[in-house]
């Protein structure tokens, strides 16, 4: 019984934090709400019997990926001017149309989901089973994921390197 109550609390926290993250003007504030949302989803993972997924969610999503965002926002150094521009872009006349359409789609999705039969229970999956399956039948997927990460590494290095090089060139030209 306790886990059901905890699940609903975590789900509420996740939804509220995500809504707050999507409507903030300041990027850092939005990022902190997003981290809270990811932590709440990690709690949900733990409660539905996926402790390994919960650990990965915290370590990789809330840890590594969000730190990347923080670094880039710090490098951009937007400040007060960026906040004012964001508030100007967040007028209700701009987002009312998309909001109504996506709420309609959401209602359809909720109707489809709620048509499936009553309470269906779930069972826990241990980390050992995940590991055995990951390096058994799914070993090709692991290889493809590693190649994708390599491509991401090379791509981001290329983009970031040109950014830094031009900065240096301009400074040298200025001197």
């Amino acid at each position, binding site marked *: 019984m306790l886990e*059901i109550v905890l*699940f609903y609390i975590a*789900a509420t926290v996740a*939804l509220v934090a*995500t*809504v707050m993250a*999507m409507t903030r003007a300041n990027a850092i504030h*939005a990022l902190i709400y*997003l981290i809270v949302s*990811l932590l709440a*989803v990690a709690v*949900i*993972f733990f*409660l*539905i*019997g*996926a402790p390994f*997924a919960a650990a*990965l969610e915290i370590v990789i*999503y809330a840890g590594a*990926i969000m730190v*990347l*965002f923080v670094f*880039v926002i710090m*490098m*951009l150094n*937007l400040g007060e001017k960026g906040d004012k521009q*964001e508030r100007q*872009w*967040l007028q209700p006349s701009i987002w009312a149309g998309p*909001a109504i359409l*996506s*709420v309609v789609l*959401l209602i359809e*999705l*909720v109707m489809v*989901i*709620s048509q*499936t039969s*009553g*309470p*269906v*229970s*779930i*069972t*826990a*999956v241990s980390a050992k089973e*995940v590991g*055995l*399956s*990951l390096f058994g039948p799914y070993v090709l997927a692991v290889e493809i*994921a590693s190649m*994708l*990460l390599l491509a*991401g590494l090379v*791509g*981001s290095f*290329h*983009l970031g390197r040109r*950014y830094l090089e031009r900065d240096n060139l301009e400074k040298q030209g200025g001197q």
Partner: protein
Amino acid sequence: MDGLNIPLNHILLVSSLLFAIGMLGLMIRRNIIFILMSLEVMLNAAALAFVAAGAHWGQPDGQIVFMLILTVAAAEVAVGLGLVLQVQKRFKTLDMDHANRMQG
């Protein structure tokens, strides 16, 4: 941890709500950083649905797809944030509408 009685419907409901919020954020925002954040929320919602389905069938496949989604999200964010730096450098703004032409 066997016999957890959280209804699958409600987990899928939370997942679809998160996905809808992410999609809304994607549509109403013009700042590239917020667009990337919305994409993260949407990927996370899809991952939640996969893990819930895997827990429903008692199979590890859901969590493996979750790991693949995590890999895709990491690679996407790395390249996307590199592009954010380039856009800020070139157009002096983060407005997506300024970067709609592929000029060199």
